[in-house]
């Protein structure tokens, strides 16, 4: 019986007995790492204000999650990194110098209203950071569209505000001023657009930094290419079509590619696991929908930028896409 005593201590768990090492926390942190270049670029161009906004957003998101779970008596999941990521994404979606109370309100909306009231991680319908951003945009339109002019940290230039290139285009489009063309009002320095020397949210300005982060995520297999490529390609296709229809009142496709929040949206917001389709076919359609709506809103909507609206609208289609675009069954 001695032997039995020893062997009865053997662990009895069902197969599989081995697991891949990748955990939710690892996935979340790899997205956070991929956002570092964009965050650094934002800090470089917008200085101390950007650091403050990012810190307030991340910290308040974590605190809201902690507090909510404390109050409801549910398990503390702060360590999985998803609240930190939501906070960081929210911060990157705000203009540098956005009031601190607004940032905290955004965190509350993202973490409590959009994420936890819908059931917490895995069950929210809308991308928390984006929903919060849109809420802030509608509630405080002035503060949300006041972008500091980029002033590289050590340049000694005091921050002044500037309209984003997309806003300039939209203002012209809405003015129906037929004496001017889009080209005449937009000064384009391709190099500046690429590195991020333009007005915009902290994390959206540097296309090159976002591209580096996105490629890192695809290389690490944290995300697949389907959604971002489909998103960016479709935006390009439709902005080309709109440009060809009315070249005077539309910005050219390259301008659309390098402006606004397209790359941040395509690589980091529309690829959110919880709020995007599960199959690759679904992702291609989801990305295409985001791209089409982005181009449409930018050209014909009353807001200069359409990426956030496009993604949130497409978030709603995800259950349907999942239902009707099942994976192809073996032998089927």
């Amino acid at each position, binding site marked *: 019986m001695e032997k039995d005593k020893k*062997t009865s201590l053997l*662990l009895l*768990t069902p197969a599989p007995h*081995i*697991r891949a090492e990748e955990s939710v926390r690892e996935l979340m942190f790899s997205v956070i790492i991929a956002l570092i270049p964009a965050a650094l670029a934002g800090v470089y161009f917008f200085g101390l204000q950007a650091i403050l906004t990012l810190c307030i957003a991340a910290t308040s998101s974590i605190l809201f999650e902690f507090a909510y779970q404390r109050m409801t008596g549910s398990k503390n*999941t702060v360590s999985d990194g998803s609240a930190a990521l939501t906070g960081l994404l929210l911060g990157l979606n705000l203009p540098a110098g956005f009031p601190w109370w607004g940032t905290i309100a955004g965190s509350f909306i993202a973490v409590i209203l959009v994420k936890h009231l819908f059931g917490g991680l895995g069950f929210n319908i809308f991308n928390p950071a984006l929903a919060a951003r849109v809420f802030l945009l509608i509630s405080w339109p002035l503060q949300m569209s006041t972008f500091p002019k980029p002033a590289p940290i050590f340049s000694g230039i005091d921050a002044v505000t500037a309209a984003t290139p997309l806003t300039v285009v939209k203002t012209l489009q809405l003015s129906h001023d037929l004496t001017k063309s889009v080209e005449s009002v937009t000064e384009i320095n391709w190099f500046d657009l690429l590195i991020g020397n333009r007005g915009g949210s902290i994390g959206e300005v540097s296309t090159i930094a976002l591209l580096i982060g996105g490629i890192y995520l695809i290389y690490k297999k944290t995300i697949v290419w389907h959604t971002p490529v489909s998103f960016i390609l479709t935006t390009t296709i439709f902005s080309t079509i709109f440009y060809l229809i009315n070249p005077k009142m539309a910005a050219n496709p390259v301008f659309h590619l390098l402006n606004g929040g397209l790359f941040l949206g395509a690589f980091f917001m529309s690829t959110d696991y919880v709020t995007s389709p599960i199959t690759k076919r679904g992702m291609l359609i989801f990305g295409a929908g985001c791209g089409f709506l982005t181009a449409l809103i930018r050209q014909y909507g009353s807001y200069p930028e359409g990426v956030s609206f496009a993604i949130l609208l497409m978030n709603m289609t995800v259950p349907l896409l999942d239902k009707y675009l099942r*994976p192809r*069954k*073996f032998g*089927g």
Partner: protein
Amino acid sequence: MIDIFHRMTFRGGIHPPEEKDRTKGIPIQTIPLPEKVVIPLSQHTGAICEPLVKVGDIVKKGQKIGEGKGSITSTVHSSISGKVVDISPHPHPLGSDILSIIIESDKKDEWVDSLTENEDYLSIEPAKLKEIIKDAGIVGLGGAQFPTHIKLSPPEGDRVEYVIINGAECEPYITSDHRLMVERASEIVEGLKIIMRVLSAKKGFIGIEKNKPDAIAKLKAQSSKLKAHIEVVGLNVKYPQGAEKQLIKSILKKEVPPSVFPIEAGVVVNNVGTAYAIYNAVRYGRPLIERVVTVTGNGVKDPGNLLARIGASFEFLIQNCGGFSGEPEKVIMGGPMMGIAQYTLKVPAIKGTSGIVVFSKNPPSSPFNKGGQGGLYQPCIRCGRCVDNCPMGISPNLYGLQAERGMIDEAYNWDVMDCIECGACSYVCPSNRPLVQFIKYLKAEVKKKQK
């Protein structure tokens, strides 16, 4: 030329660490006779055998001691010579206690007299061959333990064109088939020829994952004269390459749907160990009383590939590999992807025991602490890894949610019954969700409803 572009693989699948280096180069070892064997009367799919001996009977090695009644069943034989000391329920590696015949060795290891040798075995009539295979108690040695003589009986009107010998051995850790292919290549090819004769099949394949180049080379050399009839195919290294229908897809490029048996599609798949057992039974009249068992894992002192008598206890086999190294945490029959954890070492090796894997407590080899969550799991974050890696193209993520909510009909509509329980979904899940368990629960509930 198209073939160049066809990758020898299937959609989905995973790449767990192979962990085969411990034993893949170690030749099959003959070990001392066990003093006692426990022969469970069920080592096959189908009706349990009835004992043909009584307590106190003297039996010889290879003597038939159990036979089943009904259409789907098999036979069992004594694996040593000695005396029947007990016939009673005994722990069985598949879980429950099973009526077993316990035999004490007389240390003489004498064969039963009635073995019929056939030098000209390829001229035996197919019906007679099937009878020999049935009488030798041969079942699928890959783990499924389906009676082979039934697998070799196509339904009226179905013609079998292809026979595939499964040497994929995609389970991590296990190398029993690998060693058998390296050391018994000619016997395996002869076994394949016998199967092809039974089915009058026109072509035979031997599918082997490319991580076993020595086995591929050996079998190629053995079958080189038979090029028109037998082809050795190197397969991509991917789990579950050895799953029957995934293997068929990789080799014949055709997907046999879940509702169709391979034999209805003109294909029969047999494990290399089964082919070897068939050769032994037909050529020398020897029933299936031993098999190669890989004893391995970081919890075993001297891992190896043992030629084990059926009925030898796990404890005996592990002792023959130097015993435990450190304190064992888990003992698994089979590989770590689909194997079954054991609660006692008294269980016997059975016909489907390809390996015994021992995980030691220190250092732990199974990451139960994934993401700092202990053995617990987190909600599905819809990352899609399970869907991407599912070799059946179904939706494990949904089954998890449906199981948690008792949505049995929905799961049925989403084809949960087509799951082959390979475990790829659970393996990749970053939330550590026990998807295979969820699926097994749903399948059981669907079956209850269907009744």
